């Protein structure tokens, strides 16, 4: 059933859990009715949709099921949260977010700047920690919304959303959290965060692609992005993606089970640390990107100096290992990841950064195999690199490296 690849790219997407697929299957050919229909064939499906909504609400610690709005994914949820809020508070023209957000938020903010909004991008330090005071000082009378990610997709670094939430609540400013990379990895509780809005995506926690959620706290003022039917209380019209909704509901149940199982949670962290510590101790040219302790347990971002990330990925690919890179080449853009640049990671290792992201399906054998393969990959590329002195086994310091 599972493919042979050693999949260490779970921050990009995850396998659909077998239980999730099983739960979805009847809704394609047997129970394909429209939950909005009057007849039982469709109407009965509505009950399953509402059960799924309840599971998601439970996972997020929401007080009311109707605070859960199903969307097509987190890009839509993020856009809906920010645009929907701005549409309501039309006289407010200032947005606060961070420099290291996902493009779903960052590129939306860039577009809003072109349309006349002003946006404050809160910086991070060398370890990827948010400059909280900077954020607090940025708030003005004109601030319409604060949008901050819970955990960073590239480094896994967790932001203090609870402190931001308490602050925003006190100031009466709508607070949106992009929790895509936190969900399933750490407990996410909308009441502890005190956020008004929170986005998640199904395919990051073993539900299928194409289903997401926007949590909308009761009483939150916003306008819909789409107009159409009455679905989702007209906040997000369009016929329900029933199989996707059933899938994300089941995946939410599995997340709750998983997070309640301390041994299992600890196991992923132990495997991640084994991989990371193994790499850092093996290679003098390797450095961790991001705060070691304040991050999600599945993510490790390692910068390899003097070699290039896409080449590392291609070599790993040959060995059946799937990971990702913040290098310029692998993205199709010409600059390395905006997250690593915001952190001030030197270009010497930003171009050689590799992100390994585990899931609850990752095994110890897979980590051991990866640790065994890496020396071959890294050493082969070091041999090719003009910045590596193979005789003395150290990097060549060239003027630019100081930058």
């Amino acid at each position, binding site marked *: 059933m599972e493919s042979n690849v050693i999949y260490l790219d779970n921050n990009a997407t995850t396998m659909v859990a077998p239980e999730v697929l099983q739960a979805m299957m009847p809704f394609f050919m047997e129970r394909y009715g429209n939950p909005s229909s009057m007849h039982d064939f469709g109407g009965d499906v509505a009950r399953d949709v509402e059960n799924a909504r309840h599971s998601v609400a439970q996972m997020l610690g929401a007080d009311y099921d109707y605070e859960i709005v199903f969307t097509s994914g987190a890009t839509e949820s993020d856009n809906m949260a920010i645009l929907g809020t701005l549409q309501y508070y039309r006289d407010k023209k200032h947005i606060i977010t961070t420099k290291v957000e996902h493009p779903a938020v960052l590129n939306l903010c860039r577009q809003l700047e072109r349309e006349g909004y002003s946006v404050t991008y809160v910086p991070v330090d060398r370890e990827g920690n948010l400059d909280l005071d900077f954020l607090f000082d940025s708030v003005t009378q004109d601030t319409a919304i604060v949008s901050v990610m819970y955990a960073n997709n590239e480094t896994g670094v967790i932001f203090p959303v609870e402190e931001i939430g308490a602050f925003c609540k006190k100031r009466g400013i709508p607070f949106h959290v992009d929790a895509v990379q936190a969900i399933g990895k750490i407990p996410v509780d909308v009441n502890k965060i005190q956020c008004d809005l929170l986005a998640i995506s199904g395919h990051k926690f073993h539900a299928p692609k194409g289903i997401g959620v926007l949590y909308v706290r009761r009483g939150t003022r916003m306008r819909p992005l789409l107009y159409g039917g009455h679905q989702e209380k007209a906040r997000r019209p369009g016929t329900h993606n029933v199989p996707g909704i059933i899938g994300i509901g089941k995946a939410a149940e599995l997340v709750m089970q998983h997070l309640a199982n301390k041994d299992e949670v600890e196991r992923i962290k132990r495997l991640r640390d084994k991989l990371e510590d193994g790499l850092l101790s093996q290679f003098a040219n390797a450095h961790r990107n991001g705060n070691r302790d304040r991050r999600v347990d599945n993510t490790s971002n390692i910068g390899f100096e*003097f070699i290039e990330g896409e*080449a590392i990925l291609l*070599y790993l690919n040959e060995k059946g290992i799937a990971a990702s890179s913040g*290098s310029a080449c692998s993205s199709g853009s010409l600059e390395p990841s905006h997250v690593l640049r915001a952190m001030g990671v030197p*270009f*010497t290792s930003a171009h050689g950064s590799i992100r390994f992201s585990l899931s609850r399906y990752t095994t110890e054998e897979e980590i051991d195999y990866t640790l065994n393969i890496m020396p071959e990959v890294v050493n082969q590329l070091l041999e*090719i*690199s*003009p910045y590596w002195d193979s005789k003395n086994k150290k990097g060549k310091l060239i003027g630019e*490296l100081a930058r």
Partner: protein
Amino acid sequence: MWEYTDKVKELYKNPKNVGEIPDADVVVEVGSIVCGDALTLYLKLDNGKIVDAKFKTFGCGSAIASSSALTEMIKGKTVEEAAKITNKDIVEFLGGLPDQKMHCSVMGQEALEKAIKKIKGQSVEDEHEDEGAIVCQCFGVSENLIRRVINENNLTTVEEVTNYTKAGGACGSCIPKIEDIIKEELNKVKEKQDAEVAAKPMSNLKRMQLVEETIQNVIRPVLLRDGGDIELIDIDGKKVYVALRGHCANCVISDVTMKNLVQEKLHEYVEHDIQVIEVK
């Protein structure tokens, strides 16, 4: 995931000629670790011939493959023969590169060109003067390189120039300058073509063919759309006799049609001094 050819994959998996030549006659470096790719090329010469070539590359799969390809291509060639190799030849050798990776082949060509300059004793200190102003500060791309790559690869857009040279791919502040350069180069090409056309008078047969084609394919469709039509009566040298039909025949603005549509199109597609005469 990039669509790399089998040749590219073969060469980044098992690159040929990796390493240094301890007693190399020429060593050149291009690119930088900051920019994300860099190549050091080592050449051993004997009697004007490149008898050995090795490289070290920091960069992605296609940068490694391009470097390897370059060394394979120049080994055994005379310096003069090698000087003729362009980035296009490298791309061809590799069976193609993804658009966004074209700059890898240009990096190979740059290294080769720099090496040949060195061989010919042109001092490398002069190089910046020689290469013209730097247009893209982020990636250190010179105006001359941009112009040459535009011409050798028939580029027409900023995006293409970025794919081939990386210029404009970071902060983007040089994009207007790149646009100007493209415009200038395209104008040069057009002027050259125009000059060639002007230098060679058109034969009567060619002119007649062009007039017929233009009326049939360009002018008639426009008139037919409005319920009109046109008939070619005769061609005498540069005089073209036509009659308007259908709605056009009685149209009060038929003079305007003649001047703005028929004459203008014939000037554009055939010759600028065609004279249109309406036969009523």
